[in-house]
């Protein structure tokens, strides 16, 4: 059954019929499992991986290391959730190392991101420091290499 998810993860568009062909699992079973996973949250949502740069839409991303004074009994959860709720925040992770949270911020311009960090993020209670790294170029994202694919150098007919 894991195979169904593997197919969907690389092609969210794949129909139940196609998944059945690719995995050898019958179509009704595929439908049942997908419905159950949608209900239980194993499948969170279906998304397209969009290369916004290629579309011509300029977006600015920054990774911000956030130092937090943890709260007695609640640890980092409260602050992390408070940060995560902002629309500008794409991802929030608790990490090991010198800082506590690593968050991804997205905005239309460098100024927008900088303003958000300065006015919103650093002002949150228990956030004691931030360190912002603007993203310059993506080489690989979501397991997908974004560099040009290597050309196929195979001969067209071989034994």
């Amino acid at each position: 059954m894991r195979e169904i998810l593997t197919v969907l993860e690389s092609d969210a568009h794949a129909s139940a019929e196609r998944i059945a062909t690719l995995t050898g699992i019958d179509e009704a079973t595929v439908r049942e499992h997908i419905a159950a996973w949608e209900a239980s949250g194993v499948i969170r949502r279906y998304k397209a991986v969009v290369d916004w740069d290629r579309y011509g839409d300029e977006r600015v991303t920054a990774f911000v290391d956030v130092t937090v004074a943890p709260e007695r009994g609640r640890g980092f959860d409260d602050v992390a959730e408070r940060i995560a709720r902002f629309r500008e925040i794409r991802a929030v992770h608790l990490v090991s190392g010198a800082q506590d949270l690593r968050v991804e911020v997205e905005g239309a311009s460098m100024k927008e991101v900088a303003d958000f960090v300065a006015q919103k993020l650093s002002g949150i209670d228990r956030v004691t420091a931030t360190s912002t790294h603007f993203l310059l170029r993506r080489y690989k994202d979501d397991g997908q290499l974004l560099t040009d694919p290597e050309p196929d150098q195979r001969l067209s007919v071989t034994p």
Partner: protein
Amino acid sequence: MATDVQRSGTGPSMQPQKPFSRTVEAIPPSGIRKFFDLAQSMQGVISLGVGEPDFPTPWSAREAAIHALEHGATTYTSNSGLLALREAIVDDLADRYRVRYRAEDECLITSGVSEGLDLTLRALLNPGDEVIVPEPCYVAYQPCVAFAGGIPVPVALDPGDAYRLDPAIIGAAITENTKAILFGSPSNPTGSAQSAGDLDALAALAREHDLWLLSDEIYDRLTYHGVHTPVAASAPERTVTLGGFSKSYAMTGWRVGYVCAPEPLAQLMHRIHQYTMLCAPHMSQIAALEAMRTAQDDVDEMVADYDRRRRLFSKGLDELGLTCPVPGGAFYVFPSIASTGMTSEEFAEGLLTQEKVAVVPGNVFGPSGEGHVRCSYATALPQLEQALERIARFIGS
């Protein structure tokens, strides 16, 4: 050849007159060549004729080779190959095949299975020895037997029986001159993987008639119906295991493989290898070792991908009336084209010229491959789907 420079001794009377090797001249060139030339001359061809993975070598192996080159791995290795690689191979075979070879004197690193097969046949055969070669089979088997002075004895397998290695069919071909049986499972071109039961029976046959089993294991990791069964497990004392990295690790261009055999035969192979190849490429051996150590997940992903394509493509062919048993291994399907009324060559040539899809006519793999074509699904899914559309149009025309 047009040239203004007159080379010395090019007058007719100076041409060498003595004949070339009759053995080699008697072997026809591979029938694949003609389709290669035709396909190369055309634009926009979807090729299902490629006998190698469409994945690049896993990066960890490539990176290890680059590092090795930077640090001077440009020399010969010992004739047998890097000991660490041989140890990794025999451990892996002990694990997967349940057969324990000694790294010191029963395992030899070769330049691909091709060299391993050549060494095996040359170390084993005396003039007049017969080698049973079930067909359809890989194009090199019979020529290699002949090059080594043996007599290839092709035996037709039954397409209606999923090209099973039926011990009765093999047994009927055994004579007092038979020395060995040479086969690959999973098979190029049919994709069929032999059952443990048939391999056991084949091993019993080999014991009864004192024959060697020459087992081409190049596709041993590319199986889709449970674990691979090697014939070495049934008769290790008379099996030559020919393995490599080309197909399972997508390392065709590195030219590195191995042969494992009982010590006396392995030492004779070693003798030929030390005088001819010396050793497999050093940097390739390092890449192969790294692949064995770190690329198992890459292999699993490739196998899962081939498996999906295999299902889609064989179902698509079936719907077009080109029936084929769903292949158990490798990355080939070998459908029957009987419903079209064409010969293999007519079908392959027509499909290439009219619809620009390259397949290999089944008869190049032996007479019993007639009426079939070999399609490789080592091609991305969208291209396979497009190929199916074109094949449908070709059949309809």
